[in-house]
């Protein structure tokens, strides 16, 4: 019976502590650095992040207690998320090993982003500010921010890349439904936005511009800025994914041989794999990225800016350059030019194996997953599925336990199947 169990939805599976991989990395994590000697973007973090986030960002501590309130909200948003055996997919692939899916699409906002939005909003509220600000492109992060701030009883202001604002009315709608204020970026609400608009009246916006606007707005209005990915603290919060998986696998009596996830900024990937890498150091770890954004295979491991507007600090990571613009946008969450420093380091040291997949393969994988498991996965997560399918096909005779993190559902992104 356990074989088909979609989940063990017991409250006890939600961990009491987040896990931070930094003290367990094989090498010291290069710290964030400033662009120049004049403006400290690191100092900036002091002013826009909740103190608690700043602390977690740089802590050497392996375990950080998850506040009771956050644990309760985790339960409210659907944690623990299901871990289930993908029997339909196994049958379809005629695989004699086992494929397990950790499904973050089962949270109420449909992706893992809520795992970090909640603690960030709670920490901000605890500092007495009236609201939080952030940017969003595809909309997943904005949605998570909207819900988390609604739960925390504070306002959310979200700068949404103008072209997404126009092309993704559903996303805008859902964020407003959750009570957030959505502003197309570039906007006239910030100095930076106005300067952009002055130069080009119909500027479609970029994530970099939106970040700059959000940061400026936070500074000017004594609000806190919410970090969507890349930062250590975010990966630490996301460790709830891997920690749950660890307990769920234990209940199933299974150990993972292969771990697979997709990498945008690296938060769902790190959150999923890190606790499992610690527990099962022998496991193979595959990081799936889009062929159009081949950061690990074609990027450099170097200090580069977190954002194209160079508002936030530089970190050492695999990067295609902070001014990199991929051609296609079918998986908005994977467009990011770099990847979290810890994930990058483990790619560099060979612990994590990168895998670039093509749009075609991804769409096939999404279709297969929908028909065999009934789930419409997010395009981003489709990469992880494509990599998993490729792995199975090329390791037909191994009987491995493959665990795949499916970071979100794709119900609001189905236009990709139009092509």
């Amino acid at each position, binding site marked *: 019976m356990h074989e088909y169990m979609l989940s063990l939805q017991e409250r006890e599976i939600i961990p009491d502590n987040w896990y931070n991989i*930094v003290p367990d990395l094989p*090498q*010291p994590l290069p*710290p964030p650095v400033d662009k120049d*000697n004049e403006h*400290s973007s690191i*100092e900036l973090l002091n002013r826009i992040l909740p103190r608690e986030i*700043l602390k977690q960002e740089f802590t050497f501590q392996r375990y950080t207690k998850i506040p009771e309130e956050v644990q309760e909200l985790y339960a409210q948003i659907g944690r623990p998320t299901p871990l289930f055996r993908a029997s339909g997919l196994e049958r379809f692939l005629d695989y004699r090993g086992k494929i397990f899916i950790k499904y973050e699409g089962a949270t109420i906002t449909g992706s893992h982003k809520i795992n970090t939005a909640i603690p960030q909003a709670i920490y901000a509220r605890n500092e007495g500010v009236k609201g939080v600000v952030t940017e969003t492109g595809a909309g997943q992060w904005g949605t998570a921010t909207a819900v988390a701030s609604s739960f925390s009883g504070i306002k959310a202001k979200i700068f949404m890349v103008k072209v997404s604002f126009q092309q993704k009315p559903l996303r805008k709608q859902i964020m407003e439904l959750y009570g957030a204020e959505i502003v197309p970026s570039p906007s006239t609400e910030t100095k930076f936005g106005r300067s952009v608009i002055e130069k080009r009246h119909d500027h479609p916006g970029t994530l970099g511009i939106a970040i700059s606007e959000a940061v400026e707005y936070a500074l000017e209005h004594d609000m806190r800025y919410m970090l969507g990915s890349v930062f250590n603290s975010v990966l630490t919060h996301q460790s709830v994914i891997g920690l749950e998986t660890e307990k769920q696998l234990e209940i199933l009596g299974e150990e993972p041989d292969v771990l697979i996830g997709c990498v945008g900024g690296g938060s769902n990937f790190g959150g999923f794999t890190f606790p499992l890498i610690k527990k099962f150091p022998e496991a193979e770890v595959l990081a799936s990225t889009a062929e159009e954004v081949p950061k690990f295979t074609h990027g450099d491991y170097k200090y580069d800016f977190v954002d194209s507007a160079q508002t936030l600090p530089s970190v*050492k990571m695999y990067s295609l350059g902070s001014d990199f613009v991929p051609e296609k946008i079918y998986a908005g969450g994977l467009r990011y030019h770099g990847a979290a420093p810890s994930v990058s380091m483990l790619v560099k040291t060979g612990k994590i194996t990168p895998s670039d997949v093509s749009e075609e393969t991804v769409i096939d994988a999404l279709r297969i997953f929908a028909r065999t498991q009934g789930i419409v996965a997010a395009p981003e997560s489709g990469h992880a599925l494509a990599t998993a399918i490729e792995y199975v096909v090329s390791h037909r005779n191994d009987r491995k336990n493959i665990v795949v993190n499916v970071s979100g559902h794709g119900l609001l992104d189905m236009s990709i199947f139009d092509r």
Partner: protein
Amino acid sequence: MKPLVLYFTANYPSREILSEFIARLDTSVVKYVELGMPTDNPLYDGPTIKGTHGTSLADFRDSDLKIYSDLLREHDIRTYLLVYYHELRKRGPGFLHYLRDIGISGLIIPDLFIDYFDSGTEVIKSFPEGLEFIPFFNPATPDSVIRTVAEMTSSWVYYGLQPSTGINVPFDLREVSKRILEMVPGREVNFGFGIRTVDQVREIMELGSNGVAIGTMLIPMLKGNRIDDFVEFQEKVREMMKVVG
């Protein structure tokens, strides 16, 4: 116990002023001096100290280091050089011998295990007899790295409380110091980065530290040539140490 490890960037704000400051060191509270070797890319320093590198670099020559080490030897204070690995590499292996010969006691190389991790242990092994490699750790240093480097050395240990100077991340001093003291038992550990007040110095000393490095806090005094403030600061520390004991 002398608590202070003072950081100066060589030649900042000028050879003359820095020399005057060194002349006024209070040897009852100052244990070591950490001398920063100017570089065009002080990656892991905070904005204030970064600023000093620019100023100093212009007319810096390696031989300037000898001026300060000589002055300090007069006070019976050991000199440690804080030097980025990219500067060291530029100069080749003879440079280490030179440093030892002019009286530098040891080297702190902040970027070594971050940007040149694979070369790290080789560099340690290449140190000549009489020149110490001072392990430089911070909260972001993985346990395994601390263990490896500590085993290869026997000097004191520099532990940065912050991931970078100038940045002011909240942390629990007790936990942070406990970690390193437990990991390198019996070793002298001096804490640095982000210490701004005498109260903080006391707090750190009370937690069992062997010393406290002060850098950013001194820069405005140096810059303004406010030598009296510098003297007063040392006095306050001396007073404070009487209480701490």
